[in-house]
């Protein structure tokens, strides 16, 4: 009985978190389309359900029933597993994201507001996120198409270089919170959010996050005006939707991390606003960052591939290194 419960509770937690995440992944596509449409003087999806609210479901069903085409010249095994290699790391990161503070008790069972709180939470996420790059490169390579290959190569180079800056940008936060555990990082922001203490790091993080998730203005790997669809040009049906889901899951993941590391996680911005449940605050913050992502997609042109690499190596990485040094010195002086 004890053992059964020990297995049952995490299983329920996992399925709830996965369910919620996938629901949001589906609906972030809807929000993106709606927000972009309204920015662009049009309505966006309106047909399926009221104001097109059921559009993501219709899209999902459509993709599910589409013919699954594997090009004749493709490497079949790698072509098939590449989407999985991309999607799994994107979802697995949510295991350590804390959505709230207090546990919930239902029917005598205690559910934590996160799947697990390992003491290297943030490292765990980054470690898995890097695996996603393999999927992209493999997918591009296995398609046996020049467009996909170029897209895959671009993606590989881009993700590797921006992961560096991304990793370096959060070290300031880690120095402040003195922990790698997501829960403890949030709790360390009880009094003041790290975005106020680490504004440079926040900016670097957001820029790198955009690049890391391959979104405009850094959507080189799938620049549709140049490479048709980049690394997933040859994909169709479910496999295509795996890449698609992964992209949006990654977007939510990096937004969650930003909310946790810089925007105080589930904390309310002011004391008198604490009557609003912490989970709502967390979701609001995540959606604020997601909105920002969509907003810049509606505004900015795409940079060129070599400009992107130059920007990553010559601006972002030196800046984040400088941020680490300054933070360390200040902390040394303040904390003695």
């Amino acid at each position, binding site marked *: 009985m004890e053992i059964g419960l020990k297995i049952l509770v995490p299983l329920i937690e996992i399925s709830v978190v996965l369910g919620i995440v996938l629901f949001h992944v589906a609906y972030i596509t809807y929000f993106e389309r709606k927000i972009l449409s309204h920015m662009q003087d049009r309505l966006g999806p309106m047909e399926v359900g009221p104001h097109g609210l059921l559009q993501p479901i219709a899209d999902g069903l459509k993709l599910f029933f589409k013919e699954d085409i594997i090009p004749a010249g493709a490497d079949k095994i790698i072509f098939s597993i590449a989407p999985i290699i991309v999607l799994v790391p994107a979802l697995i990161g949510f295991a350590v994201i804390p959505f709230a503070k207090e546990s919930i008790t239902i029917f005598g069972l205690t559910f934590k507001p996160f799947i697990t709180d390992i003491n290297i939470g943030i490292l765990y996420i980054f470690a898995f996120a890097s695996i996603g790059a393999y999927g992209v490169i493999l997918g591009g390579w296995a398609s046996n198409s020049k*467009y996909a290959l170029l897209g895959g190569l671009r993606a590989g180079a881009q993700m590797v270089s921006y992961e560096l800056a991304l990793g370096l940008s959060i070290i300031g936060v880690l120095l402040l919170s003195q922990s790698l555990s997501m829960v403890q990082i949030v709790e360390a922001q009880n009094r003041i959010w790290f975005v106020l203490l680490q504004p440079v790091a926040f900016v670097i993080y957001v820029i790198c996050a955009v690049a890391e998730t391959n979104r405009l*203005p850094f959507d080189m790997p799938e*620049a549709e005006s*140049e490479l048709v669809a980049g690394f997933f040009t040859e994909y169709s049906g479910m496999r295509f939707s795996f890449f698609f889901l992964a992209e949006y899951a990654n977007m939510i993941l990096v937004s969650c991390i930003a909310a946790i590391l810089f925007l105080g996680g589930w904390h309310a911005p002011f004391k008198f606003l604490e009557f609003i449940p912490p989970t709502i605050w967390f979701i609001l913050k995540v959606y604020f960052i997601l909105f920002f992502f969509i907003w810049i997609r509606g505004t900015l042109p795409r940079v*060129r591939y070599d400009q992107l690499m130059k920007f990553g190596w010559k601006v972002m990485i030196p800046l984040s290194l400088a941020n680490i040094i300054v933070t360390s010195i200040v902390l040394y002086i303040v904390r003695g």
Partner: protein
Amino acid sequence: MAIPDAGAIMERFPGAAHENSSGGLDVIIVPKDKIPGIAEFLKNDPSQNYNFLSDITCVDYLNMRASLGAFYNPSGGGLRPIPGHPERRERFEIIYNLYSIPRGCRVFLKVYIDDKDLELESVTGVWKGADWFEREVYDMFGIKFKNHPDLRRILMPSAWKGHPLRKDYPIGGEEVVFTANKDTIDPQEVDIKELSIGDDEIYAALMLNLGGGTRLSTIKGDEPIRMDSGERRIILNLGPQHPSTHGLLRLVLDLDGERIKKVMPIIGYLHTGIEKNCEQLTYQKALTLTDRVDYLTPLSNNLAYCLAVEKLMDIDIPLRAQYARVILCELSRIASHLVYLAAQGLDVGVMSLFFYCFNERELIQDIFEYISGVRMMTSYINIGGLRYDLQEGFKEKVTAFIDRFSSKIDEFEELLTNNPIWIKRAKGIGMLSPEDAINYSVSGPSLRASGVNWDVRKAAPYSCYDHFDFTVPLGEKGDVFDRYVVRIEEMRQSLSIIRQALAALPDGPCRSQDRKILTPPKKELARSMEAVIHHFLISSAGFPVPKGEAYSSIESPRGEVGYYVVSDGSGKPYRVRIRGASFANLQAISRVSEGFMIADLIAIIGSFDPVLGEVDR
């Protein structure tokens, strides 16, 4: 108007003759062997300075001679001489259309070519832009240009039999080779020498992908060509189905990583034989085809065609129609530049701009629909004026639009002009020097972005453009950014022209009252037999146009659009040659994009704003 120094040419090149044609063209008839020499002289001699090759085309006089009593003798001897022109026995007439940008004058060289000896010296050594023009003449008439670097078919599939614009080419029943049916159609042998081009690798890549009935095996026995050159590079096929080639344009890229070593444009996917079709229709009906040439600015093409026919018929156009034509053409210039801006934005990833621009363009289309009942292919500008008078309320609608658009244009500019990412993407990319631009026959905003001040509206005002006050915006470097700035500024100038023309729009008829071209009014039909006959003739056989030839060029949003119309005196044009601005402009793409990256190439294509309908016709 005679060219000032025709005497100098005839003195230098004995055998050349000067002739004023009925349509008011300045023509110099040049002996066949003298053409490269005279071309060189006309281009480089400071007193001539014909630096811009506007067009090269050809007319097949087979039928015209027949209708004049001469007949074609296939067993040799060419054509019987035409009465009154004893010297002309040759079947083909090649026409070189030269323009001097510094002097602002135009001259036509004519070379007569006989059926038996279809070879002519190429002028690609004098003007780079001659390349595609000569290829088209070869493709359509089968005239071979000696020393041409790459004489292949350009619009028709490479395995096509015959030369469609020849008068004895059978019409109808051709089996068109597509990828789907190429196995059922007997693949025709392709002459290797005819197809051979400079770079073997690209050639091979090209042939590998070529669907049109050409088999790789036809190149070298049954051995497929291998592409091991030891170099590490990618041959990438971009288009014809690609999101950002602006239509059915195909480019074969030779890449070193993502850097472009060579670009080879392949066109003809949208070739619909408009020039040939025009010959089968009456002048009035052929007008509707000109809409389809450049589908982003149909009215400009209407105008260019009408101007040529009106020159032949010598009709006076009422002032109201002239002003209305200016307003309409400038509106469609704005509409076309909006599509350019939208597409250029999309090319570099600014999706929002695309929708903003199309919103505004929609309003212009609404105006067109309001006055003509049709949104795009209006055929509203007609021979003799406009098809019918402007609708009541036209002025108010246009005024409302220009008032709204003047502020919108600043908003659009805000999105791009000072955007650091756009500046990085556009400045210093795809530079075209003024010399190259002229040499490649580039015209329009793309030419002016390089700093060459040539706008047909200013240089040879048509349709009362000289009544209006406007400036011609110029660029400096000729890069993607300059081409963008020039077009934005042109929209502002267009607004100013529209404003002036609206204020001065006179009352009166909107079409010439010449009963030769007008169908009789309804009330006469009930009473007069002559009116019924006249009505019937105009509707079926068309109104006759006096024999002769005329050329008219206008400044379309993409550059010089010219119509060369030859009439044999009947109700149908004998030959309509369309000088598409995009066709010439597109040649320069391979020149300017070498050494840049794929992403730049996309921006460069967009910056030339090609319309493939106009390229392929």
